[in-house]
């Protein structure tokens, strides 16, 4: 279908950030169109069919336990079928079959741990309370400008500084010590149990390119912990339900979601420094013209491929250079007619399972990636979901997978990866392969192609000390404004992407509303 559609705001990208951004703009009374390249909206949070098996997955990422109920409230999603439930337990099982359970949704998450570990864990958790609020405040808003030019940002910076100082010297010192520390050191100080250390460290690592010994891994951990909070809740029905409620809300507001066609480029007026984004065109020739554009697509694609040549000057291009987005996670979906039980759990079902052993393993997996090879012993996060009829899907995040291994993603390389995952799973479920009715591997390279994720990175930009807050994804882009007028940036590469799903889109929407 060709032709020209006009709207007030055009959102490029139908993923969670895009849908949230669009809804926030639509609720402001603007006419919004969302351009979603995939056949279905929702991106990594949407369900999809496993090949042609007829089996639906429950999403590709599982960070919806950090989707804020406040954001749901801001967007009015409860009126569109969204409700929250207690988040599931996280269970860690090592190769010897020993397991530990943390009940995230409970008042005392550590009640199921062995008594001595539980005592330590409670003490540790209590020491986190003092900082959660201040960290959460940093997460839910745009990062402060460190050199403000105007009164408003200056007041904001001063109030943030006062807030941090308001923690009191001892508490502020402790937080400033924790942030740059490695989780290997921090958890190594508090816990003797290797499995518990690794189970906790596993919350620091997804989206980073390093292992638990990396400086700043504690910052990522603390931010994720603050994002999650205590007595954790998550949307009933997970990511797919969240996506459905967003789509219903968008429909109610008259916003359009256009799916299934590749975006060819931005429509612009002017040239060089006076270039202004005025919409976008699709591969089939359809044009969408808008007063303002918001992109949740990968930043380099947005700025270097979709923007016309010359729109960005040499300095702008150079400022993009440091942006790192090397994915380290492959996703393996396994479908079962009848879900096998884990011997370690006495056959009980699980929702979130971590198969790992100790921080040494996590560090070696990162080292393998560093050297361009798949981890010889990858560690896994398995998300299990099941239907009433006993069919189930396990979506496994395989950690320790380079986005561009030496030699490339050949068929043998893919097979090798799958075999290694099965080898790890076999410790927990010896006869696993017999139960599997369908299997799909997506390497970082596959994810890159399927979801437009540069480097196959699930959140568009690595989480690292030099790519957090006002450095995310680069300092210049941390303002949510592209170097091109009329274009806002709201992908998970923006703060707080990778930590609080949807919030980057929300903040970018606010920027768009204020600047157009």
């Amino acid at each position, binding site marked *: 279908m060709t032709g020209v559609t006009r709207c007030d705001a055009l959102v490029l990208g139908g993923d969670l950030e895009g849908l949230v951004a669009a809804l926030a703009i639509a609720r402001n009374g603007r006419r919004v169109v969302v351009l979603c390249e995939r056949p279905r909206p929702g991106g990594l949070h949407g369900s999809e069919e496993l090949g042609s098996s007829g089996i639906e997955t429950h999403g590709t990422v599982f960070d919806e336990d950090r989707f804020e109920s406040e954001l749901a409230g801001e967007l009015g999603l409860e009126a569109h079928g969204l409700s929250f439930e207690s988040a599931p337990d996280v269970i860690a099982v090592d190769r010897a079959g020993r397991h530990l359970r943390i009940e995230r949704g409970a008042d005392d998450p550590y009640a199921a741990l062995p008594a001595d570990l539980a005592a330590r864990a409670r003490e540790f958790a209590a020491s986190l309370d003092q900082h959660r609020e201040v960290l959460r405040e940093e997460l839910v808003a745009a990062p402060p400008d*460190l*050199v403000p030019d105007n009164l408003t940002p200056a007041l904001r910076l001063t109030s943030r500084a006062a807030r*941090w*100082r308001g923690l*009191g*010297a*001892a508490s*502020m*010192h*402790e937080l*400033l*010590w*924790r*942030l*740059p*520390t490695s989780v290997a*050191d921090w958890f190594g*100080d508090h816990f003797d149990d290797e499995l518990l250390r690794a189970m906790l460290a596993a919350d620091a690592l997804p989206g980073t390119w*390093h292992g638990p*010994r*990396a*400086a*700043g891994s504690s910052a990522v951990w603390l931010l994720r912990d603050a994002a999650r909070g205590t007595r954790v809740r998550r949307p009933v029905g997970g990511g797919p339900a969240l996506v459905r409620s967003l789509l219903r809300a968008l429909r109610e507001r008259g916003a359009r979601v256009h799916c299934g066609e590749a975006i060819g480029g931005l429509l612009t007026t002017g040239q060089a420094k006076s270039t202004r984004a005025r919409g976008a065109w699709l591969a089939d020739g359809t044009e969408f013209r808008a007063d303002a554009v918001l992109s949740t697509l990968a930043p380099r694609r947005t700025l270097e491929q979709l923007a016309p040549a010359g729109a960005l000057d040499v*300095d702008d291009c150079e*400022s993009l*250079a*440091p942006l*790192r987005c090397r994915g380290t996670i492959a996703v393996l979906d396994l479908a079962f007619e009848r879900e096998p039980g884990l011997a370690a759990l006495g056959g009980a079902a699980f929702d979130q399972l971590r198969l790992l052993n100790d921080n040494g393993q996590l*560090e070696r997996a990162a*080292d393998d990636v*560093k*050297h361009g090879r798949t981890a010889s012993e990858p560690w896994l996060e398995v998300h299990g979901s099941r239907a009433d009829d006993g069919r189930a899907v396990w979506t496994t995040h395989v950690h320790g997978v380079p986005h561009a291994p030496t030699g490339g993603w050949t068929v043998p390389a893919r097979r090798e990866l799958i075999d290694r995952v099965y080898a790890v799973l076999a410790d927990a479920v010896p006869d696993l392969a017999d139960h599997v009715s369908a299997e799909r591997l997506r390497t970082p390279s596959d994810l890159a192609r399927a979801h437009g994720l540069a480097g196959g990175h699930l959140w568009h930009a690595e989480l*690292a*000390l*030099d790519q957090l807050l*006002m*450095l995310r994804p*680069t*300092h*210049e882009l941390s303002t949510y404004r592209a170097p091109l007028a009329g274009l806002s940036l709201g992908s998970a590469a923006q703060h707080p992407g990778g930590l609080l799903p949807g919030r980057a889109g929300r903040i970018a929407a606010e920027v768009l509303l204020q600047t157009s």
Partner: protein
Amino acid sequence: MSAPADFDAIVVGGGHNGLACAAYLARAGRRVIVLERRGLVGGAAVSEELHPGFTYSVCSYVVSLLRPWIIRDLELARHGLELIPLECSFSPYLDGRSLARWDDARRTHDEIAAFSKRDAERYPLYGQRMAELAAFVAPLIDELAPDPATTSTAQLADALSHWRRFRALPARQRTLFMRLMTASAADFLDEHFESDELKAPMSVSGIIGTMQGVRSPGTAYVLLHHYMGEIDGHYRAWGFARGGTGAVSEALASAARFHGAVIRTDCDVAGLLFEGDEACGVHLANGDELRARSVISGLDPRRTFHGLVGRERLPNEINAKLDRFRYRGSSGKVNLALDRLPNFTSRPGDGPHLAGDIAIAPSVDALELAFDEAKAGRWSSRPYINVVIPSLSDPTVAPDGKHVMSCFVQYAPYELAEGPDAWPAQRDAFGDNVIATLEQYAPGLSQTILHQQVLTPWDLEREFGLSEGNIFHGELSLEQLAFLRPMAGQSQHATPIPKLWLASSGAHPGGGIMGAPGALCARRMLAGGAL
């Protein structure tokens, strides 16, 4: 009834920081005594003639961060300090190529261009940007570290002035600074350069003395050290002290004595004397006691607080912070007396390329592999080695025609898989491996060795009092810098023990033969009326 104080200050440990502190206090008219356990002052900044005619810079081997204002204030040149600039950084490669970077920009350009024309064009601009950042950072190093939680108006004013200077930087430099303080050395360099042969020897300055790799976050900022050097008012990356690194300590000692300080060597301090909670002196291993109005430690935090003071005198919370202050020595030293110069096959013969520093750093991947081995508790099978042959520029350290060759080696983790006590049994193998690695680049080296000294982290701990063999008195990682060094909540060189002060590299601004920790401690004590 307490005995009268013999001195205003006793400095425990005659390392370069203790000496600098003593010199400043003596210059301000205070009665100071320095007590050094070894037979000579200097700590790890020491020259020793371990083989007749050959003077080794036993531990630290280059000087450049020694603060220029300290050199001026204490007139160290008058006291014998002469710094000879290193003219070159030479990197040989196994494929027969080599890269030398010179003071001469044109020459350096041509050398780099052989690997990458783009990098050759960018190199001077990178240097300029880094020099600007170094100028921005210098006052942070040369002043007491403000505590962000402070209520002191003086400290708040300090912090504000640093923020204003940050604000005054061009936007691009501000961004560069933020990245410098958070990124890895390799990533930071990747932004500017493409050639691995250039990045590898450049990146290593980010990991000297740490248990981190060039790809580890938080290692980029140390790249700045390379641009902070000043010799005779000119920027110089590195230099030698004539007479070896010990000449720095000797000059500081001479300046201290000149101003009236007393220095005693072969004097082993066993612990502090207390009057109630306050430090009031020290007692020596031989039973003698010395009293002073204050005690200053030039030892690292562990030796200071868990050695001199004792754990039982400190609250649990302080001990916990001290226990988590990391040392993790990662380097060793191989000092050689040579019959003649080594011959590097990639650039054969004697030449000025041998007179600077020589970096065995074949690639960023090789450096990471070396680090991986260290993480697993093994010394690197193909280590990073930084070699200097000071005798080429300073004939006083070796007989005519012969040479001393100082090799700094990483990684040599204190915490071996079998435990640190396994080091003595592995020392020889470790040393032999360093020679064997060098032989790959300079065949025949082993035949020219007249004398060899190998120092492992275990040896550094035992001989020089460096806990776990860490050359900086504690990791220079982000959570151990500035007001966090060695722990937050202590006000600028003060300690939990009244009248006890910390002047060593375990305090801000850390290690690197800066002299600043000692000088700032003295400044703080004098300004605060402690002395």
